[in-house]
């Protein structure tokens, strides 16, 4: 319905967002900006065989080869704009306007790929649903904070993921699998969902009798192998493959990042602190480890005083365990409409139990979940909370005073839009007796809403638990921004951040449990 005319509207959504993003160009950017600038220079100046060997800057290339090729592609244009951007030595820490504008605009334009993914996902949806999904994804404040302020190319990468999901939802499994393999060669952190893909594709695509199934399995295998061969083959040829993997999987990083991502390990660390505190009180001699979490220094020695040390393999086992209900469901009842949920769930598990997780990784499940957020009232309520929590957990990324109003306003605006969108959608769905024409007038529909109690009962409301949780979020923010510096001054500078990640971890845990319950309960 109206699918042919939706492109200009989607482009309008994109253009509005792009205007705001353009205005944000002079804002703060993190070291990731220099990382990506350096990669442009590196891929432009060096032959392919040296990409992963170079050590000119501490920001060595640690993304898979396709992303390096993407940087190589961008560097062609960068060279035309200003050759110094892609100069390996003179370009180090180059901060001229040309570099900033070029890189920022490249992020804005690369979002077109995300837009294409969204377009493909929503082209068969009805108008209301489509608009809501666009608002949720194209105007996502988390993406603006991470990509356009902090500086990364997540929008582009998520575009591949959404495309893959859209093909899977249409039943075109081979294409979906192919796109996911490509995505893995852009950024290997997306591999968390690979087991889900594997189980689903094996069951839904290949499990069709012995001969047909086997031939399908070999086709799928060939496609995946071909993608990986295209990515890693050249490096294999140059004898660089070991170096590539060394760079892509740097061991020796700790369980948690300097700023703890709001995940399960936050509780683990806090439990450890509490235990050691009480054990010391009761007279046990406890050695407080030197590598404290709060200092941001995470070394090899165990950072825990009482609880057992966590190794990367432990986290892997925990992720797989958390994923197992999803495997069972995907195996017993492989349905295309559940794919988005399963993939999002996989990334949630990876986020909660993974090793050295960044807070930015929450995008990996928040964005795909937007697709299913409009399906039911419960989904909408869950997504509303999750989106706010995950966006709020990104706040510490922008710590400068200048960006403070921007991040707050972004979150506020998006929350209002979500609230308006969801409440309209679900008031409508639960009040079938109202006519479409009457609904179109804002004032009229308001009177209808207030006059029919049935509509209100089924409408979009967040219960008192949700409300008090969001209020708590506000309190955490007020404490961190105003009360803490005022009352305690420079003492305990880590407390506000710790509070944010702990508090948000509750929200993410809730989302995980909710998703798990939803996956288990669907027939």
């Amino acid at each position, binding site marked *: 319905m109206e699918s042919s005319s939706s492109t200009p509207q989607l482009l309008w959504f994109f253009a509005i967002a792009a205007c705001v993003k*353009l*205005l944000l160009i002079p804002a703060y950017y993190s070291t990731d900006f220099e990382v990506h600038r350096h990669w442009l220079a590196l891929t432009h100046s060096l032959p392919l065989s040296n990409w992963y060997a170079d050590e000119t800057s501490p920001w060595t290339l640690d993304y898979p080869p396709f992303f390096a090729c993407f940087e190589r592609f961008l560097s062609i244009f960068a060279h035309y704009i200003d050759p110094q951007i892609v100069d390996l030595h003179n370009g180090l820490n180059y901060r001229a306007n040309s570099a900033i504008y070029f890189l920022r605009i490249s992020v804005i334009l690369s979002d077109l790929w995300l837009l294409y993914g969204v377009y493909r996902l929503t082209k068969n949806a009805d108008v209301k649903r489509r608009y809501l999904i666009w608002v949720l994804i194209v105007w996502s404040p988390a993406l603006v904070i991470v990509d356009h302020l902090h500086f990364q190319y997540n929008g582009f990468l998520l575009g591949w993921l959404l495309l893959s999901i859209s093909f899977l939802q249409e039943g075109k499994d081979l294409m979906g699998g192919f796109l996911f393999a490509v995505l893995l060669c852009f950024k290997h952190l997306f591999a968390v969902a690979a087991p889900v893909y594997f189980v689903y594709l094996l069951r839904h695509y290949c499990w069709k009798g012995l001969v047909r199934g086997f031939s399908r399995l070999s086709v799928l295998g060939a496609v995946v192998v071909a993608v990986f061969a295209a990515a890693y083959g050249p490096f294999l040829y140059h004898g660089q493959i070991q170096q590539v993997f060394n760079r892509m999987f740097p061991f020796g990083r700790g369980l948690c990042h300097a700023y703890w991502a709001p995940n399960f390990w936050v509780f683990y660390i806090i439990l450890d602190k509490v235990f050691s505190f009480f054990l010391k009180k009761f007279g046990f001699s406890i050695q407080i480890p030197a590598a404290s979490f709060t200092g941001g220094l995470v070394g090899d020695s165990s950072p825990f005083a009482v609880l057992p040390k966590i190794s990367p393999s432990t986290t892997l086992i925990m992720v797989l365990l958390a994923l197992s209900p999803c495997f069972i469901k995907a195996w017993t009842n492989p349905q295309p409409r559940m794919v988005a949920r399963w993939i999002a769930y996989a990334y949630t598990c990876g986020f909660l139990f993974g090793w050295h997780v960044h807070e930015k990784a929450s995008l990996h499940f928040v964005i795909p979940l937007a697709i299913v957020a409009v399906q039911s009232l419960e989904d909408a309520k869950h997504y509303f909370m999750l989106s706010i929590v995950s966006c709020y957990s990104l706040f510490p990324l922008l710590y400068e005073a200048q960006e403070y109003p*921007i991040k707050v306003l972004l979150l506020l605006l998006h929350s*209002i839009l979500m609230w*308006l969108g969801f409440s309209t959608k679900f008031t409508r769905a639960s009040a079938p007796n109202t006519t479409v024409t009457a609904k179109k007038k804002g004032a009229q529909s308001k009177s209808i809403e207030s006059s029919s109690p049935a509509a209100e009962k089924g409408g979009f409301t967040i219960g008192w638990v949700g409300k008090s949780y969001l209020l708590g979020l506000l309190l955490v923010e007020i404490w961190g921004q105003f009360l803490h510096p005022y009352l305690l001054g420079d003492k305990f500078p880590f407390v506000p951040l710790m509070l944010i990640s702990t508090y948000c971890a509750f929200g993410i845990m809730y989302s995980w449990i909710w998703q798990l319950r939803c996956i288990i309960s669907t027939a």
Partner: protein
Amino acid sequence: MGKKKEKKEINEKVDVEAVEIEDDTWWWLTHKGIGATFLCISVFALLVRVAVSLHPYSGAGSPPKFGDYEAQRHWMEITLNLPVLEWYRNSTGNDLSYWGLDYPPLTAYQSYFHGLFLRFFDPDSVSLFTSRGYETYVGLETTDEYNCISLGLTVAAIAAILSQRELLASCLFTLALSHKQMSVYYAPAFFSHLLGKCLRRKNPIHGVAKLGLTVLGTFTVVWWPYLHSTDALLGVLSRLAPFERGIYEDYVANFWCTSSVIIKWKRLFSVHSLKFISLTATVLTCLPSMVQQVMAPSSRGFLYGLLNSSFAFYLFSFQVHEKSILLPLLPASLLALEERRPFKWLMFYGLFSMFPLLCRDKLVLPYFALHALFMLLYHAPCGHGGRPRNARPNNTKFDYFDSFKTFMNGFIYLSSFILHIVYLTMHPPEKFPYLFEAIIMLICFYQFALLAFYTNVKQWSLLEHSTTEEEKKLI
């Protein structure tokens, strides 16, 4: 700073109207009632403002005079450290050539309170003399909101008029006038509308007296410190009307500046006679719309009157600044629902006429982003594809040269688009270093004059309309 602020002020209104129009696809934004929609829009507008404030403000980091922002900061310093009477006087403590206070007392009071606030956080920034050129973030944020206040007061006054509360309106407008003397652009419309209304009362003299007392009373309260001697009052007034700066500055798209290409006003006449000529011209251009309002005051006519009188001032008054085009934009945005196309037209050329100014302040990127944002909001996808509901709402008078008009419009849009690019990429010939500014000015003046003519005609056609209606009623 001020320019951007006001422009965004306008943008915000555009938003309101854009959303109001698109009730077909945007009803989900409006169904919760005006409160939620307004909240949503104002948060968005605020976001845009904050984003723009990231860009360099005018005169950033360029000593010795810095720029508008430094002026605001300097005023805080002056008002905080000197007694009221010295604020407008050149003295040892107050060097008027360095950003002397040149806005009416209400602005000065405001500076004083902001200064108090700022002193609490950042005492260094307001200490007299030592703080010149002090640039920090806190200051930047607090000195951000000024132009909006007088515009806000004006909007409140207009709203009061529309809801038939004349006394409140005149009080509010007087406040606006004492905040920024630029509000005088609207004065003829207010005056004539209120006069016209009073004349229709049973007891016209009583009504006029009441309004007059309100205005005088408000003025007295605001200007109290300066009223005890004519000297002090005149001192303030001479600061407010800086005639020594000449009839026009830079390349502003008004009559004097444009015609100066042919007639060298500054050489032919003295400042004094120029004052007189410009005053006469302004009054003459205001007059038709004033007469119309006195004859038949109506809400719509009042809005047109505001537009016409501010146009008259922009085109013909003495010492107009580029950013003054924002003053006609305000009533135009209030009329935007009726006059969609002219509004877009005015917005386009209004922004365009400020383009050289913004370029000088290194605001090219925000200029284009905001311009695009406005065009996008104007052409928001909605049920009827962004077009006005009745395809040709304003061509009742001129449809015989309709096709010619379309052609001319398209041609001028195109050429101004090309001019944008030319202005950015090419250097003007050395003999005429301001060639492009002059061309931009010519185009914009032509457009503004056309629009002013059109809105005047429109306002008078309202009169015909209403008289015919009245006649019908009588019959």
